[in-house]
């Protein structure tokens, strides 16, 4: 379960060394925005060596590469594909065409490196107005297993004003979640950019979870605890889910059709949601029976 994905600059040895101690479910080693153009090659080598040496204790290792239209992109892929990260994150993905071009390149590189063809998976970062409009096509493109919204570039592209309440990205968020769910893949929310505003982060993460996002990116380790909390089921939710399944079992045993709990009809979507909640609780080692 990937609730939190922590961005880590690819050119910082100290941060790379400790990238996996912050309880983020996944880490995104960044070769793109965090790294100045004259440090791209150094960062690439550093990230490669870090991944080989440190054996990061995280559920998902993700590496963000430079945009397709830069010369760095191919070099990034040549270095990174053999490392077999869980995902490669292409940036500013505007449409299916970008993914197809990337797929071609990956195919060649996989072949050259003796990596099984098609095995490299993508987490597409969508951060343009065009990308948002094409979200579903991107979600269905080859290799794409998740989408992420990048709100800073996106709102700049929109010429919108970025706010703490994030009303300006409501459309993009909903569209990304809908596209990802329609394609049967995960959706990750944009990072909250005020490192010191822990309350703001918590509200933002809860709003993202409510919209249906699977998890959220972070640019600071100090945001991880809040994100993990927001994307984990609460004890009350788990307790309710348990009750729903108990009531359903009981009804089946007694051969009853319709059942209710706390005065509410328990129908199929509620049961399905309860199952999802309990699956999450188990994945997080929450002690379901004791709750």
């Amino acid at each position, binding site marked *: 379960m990937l609730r939190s994905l922590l961005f880590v600059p690819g050119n910082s040895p*100290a941060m790379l*060394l*400790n990238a996996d*101690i*912050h309880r983020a479910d996944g880490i995104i080693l960044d070769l793109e925005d965090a790294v100045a153009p004259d440090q791209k090659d150094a960062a690439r080598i550093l990230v490669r060596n870090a991944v080989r*040496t*440190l054996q990061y204790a995280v559920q998902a290792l993700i590496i963000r590469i430079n945009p397709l239209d830069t010369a760095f992109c191919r070099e990034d892929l040549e270095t990174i594909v053999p490392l077999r990260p869980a995902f490669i994150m292409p940036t500013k993905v505007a449409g299916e065409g970008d993914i197809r071009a990337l797929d071609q390149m990956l195919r060649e590189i996989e072949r050259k490196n003796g990596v099984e063809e098609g095995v490299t998976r993508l987490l597409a970062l969508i951060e343009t107005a065009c990308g948002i409009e094409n979200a579903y096509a991107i979600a269905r493109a080859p290799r794409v297993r998740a989408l992420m919204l990048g709100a800073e570039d996106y709102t700049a592209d929109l010429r919108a004003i970025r706010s703490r309440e994030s009303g300006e990205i409501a459309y993009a968020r909903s569209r990304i979640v809908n596209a990802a769910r329609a394609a049967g893949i995960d959706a990750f929310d944009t990072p909250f950019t005020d490192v010191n505003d822990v309350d703001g982060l918590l509200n933002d993460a809860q709003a993202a979870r409510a919209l249906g996002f699977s998890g959220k990116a972070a640019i*600071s*380790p*100090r945001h991880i605890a809040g994100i993990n909390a927001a994307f984990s089921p609460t004890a009350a939710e788990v307790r309710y889910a348990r009750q729903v399944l108990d009531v359903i079992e009981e009804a089946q045993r007694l051969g009853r059709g319709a059942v209710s709990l706390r005065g509410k009809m328990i129908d199929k979507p509620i049961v399905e949601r309860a199952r999802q909640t309990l699956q999450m609780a188990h994945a997080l080692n929450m002690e379901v029976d004791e709750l």
Partner: protein
Amino acid sequence: MTKLKSTLRSALEAAGLTSGMTVSFHHHLRNGDHVLNMVLDEAAAMGIKNLTLQASSIFPVHAPLIGHIQSGVVTGIETAYMSGPVADAISHALLARPVVFRSHGGRAQAIASGRVHIDIAFIAAPCADCAGNLNGLYGPAACGSLGYAFTDARYADCVVAITDHLVPYPAAPASIDETQVDYVVQVPCIGDPGGIVSGTTSVTRDPVGLRIAEYAAQVMASSGLLQEGFSFQTGAGGASLAVTEYLKPLLRARGITAGFGMGGITGAMVDMLENGYVRSLLDVQCFDLRAVASIRDNPAHQEIPALRYAAPIARGSAVDQLSCVVLGATEIDVDFNVNVHTDSSGVILGGSGGHSDTAAGAQLTMIVAPLMRARLPIVVDRVGCISTPGSTVDVLVTQRGIAVHPARRELRDALVAAHLPVYDIHALRDMARRITGTPAVLPHGHRVVGVVEYRDGSLLDQIFALDE
């Protein structure tokens, strides 16, 4: 008879300063202190030689001491801590006699027992009256507690108070009173308040330091000690200070109030006092100006002498009442011995301060440190200098795991039960070495430049000159 002298020279003459004496200084003005330098400059001008300096700590601001050592004005140093140019110079064998390092409690006890004799104690006094009633609470160089100066004032043959803030008799409160003071001299400035605040006293924002601090608080929570009346001390390092931030929600969640917080007191500790997390503070030195204001205004924030703070005496001292102390380390070895005297190159950069005292007294002694510093593992096979014996250390907390002293099996079991990442200390060493490789052992010179006395006066270790 008036105790008030018009010049420093006349005070030194009245006090009978002669060559070969032992003179003492306290370090509450920290890196802002002007008093040690001005007294030694004056002594040098008087042609005095061969002084032994009994200073509770020496800071970078005391760099002029090097010249006084070279010219023979100072030929011996006994202290609890030294950093900066003097420490570097000592490591390069500047002084013929080894520096004697004691802990704060050990120093106070050595003076109180008469094993160390002080001829003249010079007390930097932020506030004084003409009769020698002194406190650290008022004046331009207010430093708060005068904890380390109490023992010197009480046991020295002669006591000279040096102040830049002379108030009408009686100065109140009298932390050190007129019955102990022989002379008072007014000078333009005893210190720079900006230097009282140390750069290491702000809570860290470094995520690695915060991770360590969170683990440290969880260790406290799982140790069984976090009950009503729990008492604690944290060092002045950023990670130690962050521990108090994580401690607050734990205290709140359990509905308990800590009995006392002790040590060098910081604004973070004052926050805990003012917000009801802790009932009182025992303060041997103030680490920042917030603490200075608090000790002046809040009766629950008490000034305590070094002897009461940390001395290894049969009647006991406050360290013996500590539930938990959080301390730093430059390195720690697989037997849990801790070095806070020298860095990885063998250069002196600190000293025990209250490290070994609190470690000996507290029920739970926790060392917090990153697994690696720069390219060096924090856990080594043998520390360069034993500052605090491993037998008094219970836990090492790093960002990647926690090691428990093998003698504390029940603690280890409790931490494992709390799902904390507990490892054998050798495993933590190896974890770092997988990344750094195994560092070569650095050869040292043959000359002994420092001896480390344990708090009971026994010899704990020696510090050697660098291999030149």
